[in-house]
């Protein structure tokens, strides 16, 4: 099947070349980081995780959202999703690949990463995150590939793949729950020490992931002969609507508990993110854009006419993706580290090199996605 990725029109190759160029730039920047150490990033003693870990966290959500296609199709026999489950599964594969790359570029000693396997440590949430992420990667690539191959041969998928599909359904939320536990179980980090972290991760993931899938389906319709159809897009839009509203609600729950209780160790982080402390407030405009945008998107999506019109739906989806990205990919990690354990402010902002490396990882992920989608779409086109 892979040969289908090697034959394409000029637009396909153009995209591949552009992505490869970004990957190469990012890789060169990474070689420099390997030589110089992580001091080329904006991270510090106080903000010891930054942009890389934040991207990782956001992308785990994107990966988990594949279940929003798989579950209705396989458990509720919702046929409309049959044509596009492959898009969800391959998006999950690309997203998990990015997650792994973001973890790798964040390590001070990447050449020692196999120590995690050599000295397995079940009390570390990071160990479990490795287990669930690699499992999820394998499940999705095996399921996606096998089902697509069967479709190509116009034969039913082999029977052994069914149990794997059922396993992949509870596995998907697990990857994001475990990722939330990375943060939510640390004493002394008031911003993260909240039981709503995992639920909030899940709903923001199930809003942003399907929103991205809607956009991807629209792009595929524009540039290829593959049309996902109106019905699945509308169902996805409903999922996005419910999840983004619940996410806004969860933010409100968190804000209520933090500010009604008035416990400084929990309030200070919100103060830093949304108002700034003592003149330090690099993230303040971003956080307000995120919150206002998220609420606006929720209101827009509730209106049926907005959802039905593909142009306005696309706009709402972009808003959901951007606002949830600011929330998780920018505010969540830095907000947890500021103020530091000494109640002091050290701000964080990614450096150009850090952003180049991140762009390289994103491009590598989208390259994987492009190739996988090319294979899937070619086969779907051949079948008509």
């Amino acid at each position: 099947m892979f040969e289908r990725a090697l034959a394409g029109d000029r637009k396909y190759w153009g995209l591949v070349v552009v992505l490869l160029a970004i990957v190469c730039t990012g890789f060169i920047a990474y070689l420099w980081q390997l030589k110089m150490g992580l001091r080329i990033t904006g991270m510090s003693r106080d903000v010891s995780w930054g942009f890389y870990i934040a991207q990782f966290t956001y992308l785990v959500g994107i990966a988990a959202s594949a279940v929003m296609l798989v579950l209705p199709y396989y458990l509720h026999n919702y046929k409309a999703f049959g044509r596009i489950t492959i898009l969800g599964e391959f998006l999950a594969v690309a997203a998990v690949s990015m997650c792994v790359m973001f973890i790798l570029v964040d390590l001070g000693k990447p050449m020692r990463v196999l120590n995690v396997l050599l000295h397995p440590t079940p009390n570390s949430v990071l160990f479990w995150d490795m287990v669930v992420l690699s499992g999820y990667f394998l499940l999705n690539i095996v399921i996606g590939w096998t089902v697509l191959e069967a479709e190509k041969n116009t034969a039913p998928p082999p029977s052994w793949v069914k149990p794997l599909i059922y396993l992949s359904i509870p596995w998907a939320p697990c990857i994001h729950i475990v990722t939330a536990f990375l943060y939510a179980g640390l004493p002394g980090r008031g911003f993260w020490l909240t039981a709503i972290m995992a639920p909030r991760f899940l709903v923001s993931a199930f809003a942003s992931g399907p929103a991205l899938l809607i956009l991807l389906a629209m792009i595929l319709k524009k540039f290829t002969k593959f049309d996902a159809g109106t019905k699945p897009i509308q169902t996805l839009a409903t999922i996005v609507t419910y999840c983004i509203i619940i996410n806004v609600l969860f933010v409100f729950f968190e804000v209520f508990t933090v500010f009604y209780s008035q416990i400084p160790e929990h309030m200070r982080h919100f103060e830093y993110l949304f108002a700034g402390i003592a003149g330090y407030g690099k993230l303040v405009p971003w956080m307000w854009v995120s919150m206002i945008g998220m609420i606006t998107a929720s209101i827009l999506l509730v209106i049926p006419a907005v959802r039905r019109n593909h142009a306005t739906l696309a706009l709402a989806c972009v808003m959901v993706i951007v606002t949830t990205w600011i929330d998780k990919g920018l505010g969540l990690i830095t907000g947890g580290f500021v103020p530091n354990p000494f109640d002091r402010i050290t701000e964080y902002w990614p450096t150009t090199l850090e952003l180049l490396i991140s762009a390289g990882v994103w491009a590598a992920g989208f390259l994987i996605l492009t190739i996988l989608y090319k294979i899937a779409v070619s086969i779907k086109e051949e079948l008509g």
Partner: protein
Amino acid sequence: MKTVDEKTVTMNRRKFLEITGVSTIVGLLGGWGLVELLAPGELEATYLPKKEALVAKRWAMLIDMKKITEQSAKKCITVCHRIHNVPDVGDPKREIKWIWLEHFANAFPGDEHEHMPERIEEERFFVMCNHCDNPPCVRVCPTKATWQRGDGIIMMDQHRCIGCRYCMAACPFGARGFNWGDYRFLIKDRNPEYPTREKGVVEKCNFCAERLAKGRIPACVEESEGAMVFGDLMDSQSELRKIMREQYTIRRKPYLGTNPQVYYMV
């Protein structure tokens, strides 16, 4: 006929690879398992302290802030950083420090109030790794590169650390530092008795484990001229316990449940 042959050959080759692969795994696991079964723990290195070593059931430290002046504190810090090859990075954002000074409001956030004695408000407190009895850093480390010894000391294996910095996120005391770059060349006069660290690993105070092994108390305690006491918390006859019986001591953020083992007299 030819196609059939080719097919048989590929099948054989595949089968061969399967068998070698599986038997390698079984061999490795089985070999290791057999040793573990016949002589449990023998594959792990065993460690016995030398005769001259100082030993305790639970090491702990007591700092009498009334006896510490800014000058004597600086001496302790300098000695610690010199003997442990702690580099002088200069940049407070990326510096490494094993022991340093913080104001009361920063060392004990939430415990300060507006009407405290000026002496305490202005005084700067020694802070370092608390060698917690319930250490979150050890709990989160994915490689056991940081671990707790039987006597309570939290150790770091800089050869195993992958530099994920999860321990730094987990530590509620900001005790851990990361080698953001190659800091070795910043060490002015290098102590050949103690290793230096590469870029990309985490480090922190080790309660002078290397000195205890040679029968010497931690360097800061030695240098503090009686302001710091180091001893066995489990030994009711130790000087540490004697002082604790008579004086009220406080700890940093005890409500987090990490059970820190550095006690302060203010």
